């Protein structure tokens, strides 16, 4: 395919177009992705999550600058929420990143979440796949930043950076409620504000309570940064390089990849089955079954079994 060749050859417009086709679920995207997948697997994929306003976009911008000093080519995928009412979105992460524009070795793409929960868009992983094939050394994903529910990033990234700021009790609460487990690196950003050391100490304390940490063999470093002026960013880049090395040497990269591939295949199978189901069952028929369940003339298990039989599956009713 011509467009695939152009992506592989480093044509930014071709890459941008491929991303659009992926986002829109265009029919040709599947074959393009299949071809691109075979050419990827080299990038270090890094996720940034944390509350809105924590400084993720600013920090990502500084990290990209640092990685450029280290002569890496860098891709960025920044996800912002779509309005649930209109489907529209204002994608503003680029405001902070515009200073990177004009560097041919940096590619930045904003994505709207388009109805997905969990901090990413449904197609974010495929977009990363395209950037990976286009030979970016590091690909940074910035999540929506909704806090607690953002565990999707674990399935998309190899190294997850959780960004917090000093003096946000709520933030630490959110970390307790699930983000602690997903962090490979903690950043306390806005360290120019009072309380950064205390926040770092609280994080250290919380980590000591995490009983699964030992199994993972990796102790997440806690790094203080001032994204506004770049302080601490080289240390962050070093920590990411360390984690990348750790993943490779410990065998965890292979196992993460295995899990990710497995879940992708499963998701595609799910989707294929649902598509077949949708094609096989008329909406009216579907509605009628729902009615029957509500009226308690039948139950959800039997209803599902009836539907499954329509696509040739035998499910216990």
């Amino acid at each position, binding site marked *: 395919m011509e467009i695939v060749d152009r992506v592989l050859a480093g*044509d*930014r417009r071709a890459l941008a177009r491929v*991303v659009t086709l992926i986002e829109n679920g265009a029919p040709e995207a599947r074959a393009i992705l299949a071809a691109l997948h075979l050419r990827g697997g080299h990038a270090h994929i890094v996720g940034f999550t944390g509350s809105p306003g924590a400084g993720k976009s600013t920090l990502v911008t500084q990290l990209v600058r640092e990685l450029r000093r280290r002569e890496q080519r860098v891709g960025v995928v920044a996800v912002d929420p*779509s309005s649930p009412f*209109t*489907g529209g979105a204002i994608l503003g992460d680029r*405001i902070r990143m*515009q200073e990177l*524009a004009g560097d041919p070795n940096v590619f930045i793409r904003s994505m709207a979440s388009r109805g997905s929960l969990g901090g990413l868009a449904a197609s974010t992983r495929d977009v990363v796949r395209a950037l990976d094939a286009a030979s970016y050394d590091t690909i940074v994903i910035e999540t929506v930043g909704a806090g607690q529910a953002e565990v999707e990033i674990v399935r998309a990234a190899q190294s997850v950076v959780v960004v917090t700021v000093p003096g946000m009790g709520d933030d630490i609460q959110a970390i307790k409620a699930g983000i602690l487990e997903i962090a490979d690196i903690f950043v306390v950003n806005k360290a120019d504000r009072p309380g950064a050391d205390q926040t770092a100490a609280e994080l250290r304390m919380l980590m000591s309570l995490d009983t699964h940490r030992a199994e993972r063999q990796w102790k997440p470093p806690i790094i203080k940064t001032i994204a506004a002026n770049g302080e601490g960013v080289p240390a962050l880049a070093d920590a990411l390089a360390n984690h990348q090395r750790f993943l490779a040497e410990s065998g965890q990269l292979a196992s993460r990849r295995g899990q990710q591939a497995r879940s992708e295949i499963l998701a595609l199978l799910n989707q294929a089955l649902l598509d077949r189901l949708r094609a096989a069952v008329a909406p009216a028929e579907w509605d009628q079954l729902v009615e029957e369940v509500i009226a308690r003339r039948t139950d959800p298990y039997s209803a599902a079994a009836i539907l499954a039989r329509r696509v040739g599956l035998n499910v216990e009713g």
Partner: protein
Amino acid sequence: MTEQTAERKIRVLVAKPGLDGHDRGAKVIARALRDAGMEVIYTGIRQTPTMIVEAAIQEDVDAILMSILSGAHMALFPKVMDSLRQNGVDDVLVLAGGILPDEDIPAIEALGIRGNFGPGTPMQSIIDFVRANVHTERLTRALSPLGGLSGESSGATPGESAGTSAGAGASGQTAG
């Protein structure tokens, strides 16, 4: 993979070229287009032509909306349009608004910039103009080669890209 992803979204870039700090209009437009269901990339003030063109390319937008009230439009618009052309971008609707004196409108339109809406333009007419004029078929067409100068022209058909067509919306409207 949800139903919502399998649709064509209009993506637009709202850009503030130059040193102009008047960003109210740009922000109002960004919000209105979002509320009309579009995905709006807003890059903030102080954008160079390179920043605008790079953002438009990487984000693969359907339209670029430049808002400028400072009077520097004739210094900036030609650079943006040149750079787009040099990069082979021939299928993106470019429109402008803000304080654009009537006497400059013909020159602006000759660059291929459409719209040219002034103060007091109702949001709905901007939304309608974008919807009516983006090249909706651009995603199904082969991408023109980099540089856009060689090879067969797979880009916009002459009528579409000319942009000099009179009556391109509210040309020179300066109510208020």
